[in-house]
């Protein structure tokens, strides 16, 4: 079993190395073939690992430890070691499973791109780092995955590197994530100080120590500080306020990348981190409040922005930010099972929607503006049907997946944090509204596609339809993994060894009723409003619409309060301090050390002979001083 654990990250790494070194000589078939097979291999290994988890009495499997960083003479020894239990086992299946589907889709989508093999190298590299992130047995190794997926994300957002906006977005993503990474790093240092270890599991591991709270005690203030720093890291990776601004820009990358990294997997790493440390978060009521409110506000802000987008990918990007916010609402209300459940269902339907959007964009030769779509339902039938399924799922209409997982979150918020429930419920209504808006604008109404494109639609091939179909099926049925209302609680039972199952709430009927009504009413309103959309009827001139479209102008705010002052400070330190400060210090040197000053003035000539002469004089001075001192001190 220990060996199989290693296979999960290493097979994609080998794929990445092959494509990264000799990929350009392989041709498209071989290049994508290697990449796809490596992720399928990782998926099979992951299934074996999860099988091992369910059959093991302790509900976990561990790899052997291979030396990484250790300092002799100190107890510090950080190995490469992996640990899989139900919490990350489930994620691993999603990462490699959805990952494999998106690799297959990409093989067709990226056809003809001159960076074809480079693309697959990056994508495989991502799967490697993502597997390391969730499987890591200690925090520094988790950080390897954490920054590694950031690297892969940077490379893939900026994949079309000749495009300025793409490299700009890539840089922004990495830097904003780095802010969160520093918080995580400091959290790690604090954990090391408190727990004397960086291992997560095992006898002395941090999580084990946290479980055995009778023998271990952390002050609430310290717990709060660590929890908030961890959440700072999570907020960067999972695009929460105030660090969410990178994710909408990340849509500059190829669409399958958006589906895999910026919807299904990487962005959920923050939720994984919080759930992993749920015991620590539960020690601090303040941290829980911060998580719940941040999640709720992010969800609402992003949903507002989602309503006002014309770019089909931007709708989905803001939707992702918003859904991630809901997952943090769940965490902040203590419903960690619900958070992880939504991570899973969201991975299916959001990947489905992104890939569907990609198929639409592909069909329209790269068009992303929904004002130039419309009436596509009859033209690309299979894509239409599958996007419709995704839309119903995310809108929270029963019995599809999104309904069940979102309902759990709303219920937890209703029971534990009523104001945040308000935010989440409003978000749900807006979600249904903007998703139907997207669907209607794209597929229904009259066609606004230009003549030429309409006659030359790219019809998706099997490699595009097959992944969509599988994700469509999952989006329909995945909700039944955890549908307590109909007596199904497979998923919470599965997580129970790591996260205690939620108690039964007697508000469940009420909350579910409200949710269904809200989802249906919002959907109906949206369909009615956009049924006969024509360009010009949109509220694009209204200032509120523009304000929403810019996501409440957070980018402008940061430009004004962060970027500008820091740029000015950098320019100041360069001009005032570096250029002139050195001269000032030097003048001080001139006047205080006279003989140095004189020699310096002599050297203005810049003639090499002078340097040597001066150096010789100095050496003579030095040596004579030494000689004098030597004779005096030499007994």
């Amino acid at each position, binding site marked *: 079993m220990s060996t199989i654990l290693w296979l999960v990250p290493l097979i994609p790494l080998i794929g990445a190395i092959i494509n990264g070194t000799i990929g350009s000589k392989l041709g498209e078939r071989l290049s994508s073939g290697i990449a796809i097979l490596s992720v399928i291999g990782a998926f099979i290994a992951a299934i074996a690992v999860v099988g091992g988890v369910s059959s093991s009495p302790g509900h976990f499997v561990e790899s052997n430890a291979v*030396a990484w*960083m250790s300092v002799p003479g*100190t107890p510090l020894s950080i190995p490469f070691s992996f640990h899989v239990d139900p919490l990350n086992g489930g994620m691993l299946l999603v990462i490699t499973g959805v990952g494999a589907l998106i690799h297959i889709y990409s093989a067709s989508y990226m056809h003809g791109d001159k960076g074809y093999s480079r693309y697959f190298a990056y994508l495989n590299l991502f799967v490697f780092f993502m597997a390391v992130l969730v499987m890591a047995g200690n925090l520094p190794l988790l950080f390897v995955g954490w920054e*590694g997926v950031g690297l892969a994300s940077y490379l893939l957002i900026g994949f079309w590197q000749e495009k300025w906006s793409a490299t700009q977005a890539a840089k922004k993503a990495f830097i904003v994530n780095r802010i969160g990474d520093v918080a995580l790093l400091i959290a790690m240092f604090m954990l*090391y100080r408190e727990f004397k270890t960086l*291992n997560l599991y095992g006898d002395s591991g941090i999580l084990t120590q946290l479980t055995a709270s009778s023998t271990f005690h952390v002050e609430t203030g310290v717990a709060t500080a660590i929890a908030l720093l961890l959440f700072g890291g999570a907020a960067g990776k999972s695009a929460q306020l105030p660090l969410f601004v990178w994710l909408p820009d990340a849509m500059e990358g190829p669409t399958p990348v958006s589906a895999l990294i910026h919807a299904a997997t990487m962005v959920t790493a923050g939720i994984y981190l919080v759930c992993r440390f749920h015991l620590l978060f539960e020690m601090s009521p303040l941290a829980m409040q911060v998580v719940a409110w941040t999640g709720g506000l992010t969800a609402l802000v992003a949903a507002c922005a989602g309503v006002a987008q014309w770019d089909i990918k931007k709708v989905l990007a803001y939707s992702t930010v918003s859904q991630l916010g809901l997952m943090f609402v769940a965490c902040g209300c203590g419903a960690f099972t619900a958070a992880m459940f939504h991570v899973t269902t969201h991975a299916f339907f959001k990947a489905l929607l992104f890939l569907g959007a990609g198929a639409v964009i592909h069909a329209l030769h790269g068009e992303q503006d929904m004002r130039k779509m419309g009436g596509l339902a009859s033209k690309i039938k299979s894509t239409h049907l599958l996007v419709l399924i995704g839309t119903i799922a995310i809108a929270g209409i029963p019995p599809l997946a999104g309904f069940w997982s979102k309902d759990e979150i709303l219920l937890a918020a209703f029971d534990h944090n009523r104001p945040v429930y308000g935010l989440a419920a409003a978000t749900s209504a807006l979600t249904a509204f903007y998703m139907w808006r997207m669907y209607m604008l794209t597929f229904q109404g009259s066609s606004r596609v230009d003549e030429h494109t309409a006659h030359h639609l790219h019809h998706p091939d099997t490699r595009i339809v097959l992944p969509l179909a599988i994700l469509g099926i999952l989006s329909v049925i995945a909700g039944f993994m955890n549908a307590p209302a109909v007596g199904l609680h497979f998923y919470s039972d599965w997580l129970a060894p790591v996260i205690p199952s939620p108690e039964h709430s007697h508000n469940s009927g009420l909350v579910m009723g409200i949710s269904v009504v809200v989802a249906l009413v919002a959907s109906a309103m949206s369909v009615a409003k956009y049924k006969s959309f024509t360009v010009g009827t949109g509220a694009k001139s209204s200032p509120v619409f523009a304000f929403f479209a810019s996501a409440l102008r957070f980018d402008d705010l940061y430009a004004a309060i962060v970027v500008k002052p820091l740029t000015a400070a*950098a320019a100041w330190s360069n001009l005032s*301090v570096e250029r002139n400060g050195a001269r000032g210090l030097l003048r001080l040197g001139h006047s205080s*050390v006279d003989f140095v000053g004189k020699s310096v003035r002599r050297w203005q000539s810049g003639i090499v002979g002078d340097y040597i002469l001066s150096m010789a004089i100095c050496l003579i001075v030095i040596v004579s001083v030494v000689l004098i001192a030597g004779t005096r001190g030499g007994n």
Partner: protein
Amino acid sequence: MNELILVIVALPLIAAVIASLVHEKSAKSISIIGSAIACLLSILGITTGGTIDRGFHHVFNAPWLPKLGLMFSFGLDGMSSLLVLLTTFLTVIAVIVIPAPKNAVRAYYLSILVAGALTNVAFASLNILLFYIAFEAALIPVLIAIGMFGGGDRSKAAIQFFVFTVIGSLLLLSAIIGLRIATGTFDYLTLKDLVAAGAVDPSLLRWFAIASFIAFATKAAVVPLHAWLGRAYINTPTGMLLLLSGAMAKLGVYGLIRFTLPLGGDFAESLVPLIVTLGAVSVVYGAFVAAAQTDIKAVIAFSSISHMGYIVIGAVVGDDAARSGSVLQMLNHGITTGALFICCDFISRYRGSRQVTALGGIWSDSPLFSRLLLLFTFSSVALPLTNGFVGEFLILLGAFHKFPYQTAIASAGAIGSAVYMLWMIQRSIYGGSKSDASKVISLGVSERSVLLALALMIIGIGVAPSPLLAIASDNGHKVGAAMQPEVK
């Protein structure tokens, strides 16, 4: 083999002398041969062997001016053997990949080989006066190289550089002489024992601590004593710059670990909070200045202030893990910054400019070169699984429990490095191709091999740093009692 260090120092010097006598065409190959053998031999220096004395191996003693107390006494511990290896390695690659200026080939190689050899004398010396002489004398070839082959601002650069370092050095000299007067010896190991036994006047130790701190902090470019660095680095020819930034600046940190803390007594201990704070300030300040540059060589030059800040923190903080990380990071910084300066030199040579405004699109012309540059960039940004992460992580982890606030500030420097390095990459290698075919960066076999070797080292140290950490942790000095958390 106790004469090992003599051979390591002498070989490049002999090569330099021969190279300056023969025809210009063979000067390069003779320099390569001499420095390459020295580099291979310095790998032997890592292994313990020869006479062993109080933690040092390959100990060698011979009189020079015995009446003065000036001895050729050498010895290596883990730290100094790694730094000697770094210096010889940088000498070799500097000679291989950076072409000499056409008008003065022999003088150019002579200056580099002499600078490397003198730096090694300083790293290996167990006689504090010998250390001092080498520490000073190593400046001469650097100043000559700046003066003869440097950039447009060279005379200013050389003067500022000289004045700043010489002020610190004279202070250091006075303190060394003071120690000699009080103890009658320049022998490092004897001095260390005497200080540890409390046999030296504390006021003298206090002066030694202050004076040596100023000298070493200037060398290591700790803010505000860094003011010489920008102009000096930008105007130093790249071959010499590899040694200056990669090896000689490390003499400052080495001096803090080797001399200031063990010989500075209690007062040196009391300076630690100040040094750590200045280190943290350097990290942040260096990042700010680097972010304001438009010349890629200047970006990398100022980034050194930031990186050296981390190394200084780890050196003095008094934690074994942090100090080992700091020693390893000296090696890492030499490799990574060296690689970046080499890339910068290629760009400048082929594109005719180092200004980001004139660059762009290098990836589409030279994909291999660009990929390697990207790797070096992420090593500089301290991405995990590169060498930079291991060093910085251990430094910060070890420093945090004693100086949480300074460490947190220094950690934030990680944001800064992403800002200026990724900006530089975006402007220089991304974007559409801007140049004609004549400006495409094409790497020859030797250039490609050197860059690939550097890349392998970066990944190798990032993935399996433990063997090097084992050597780095032998740094012969313990400051205070480090907190030793249990890790199983």
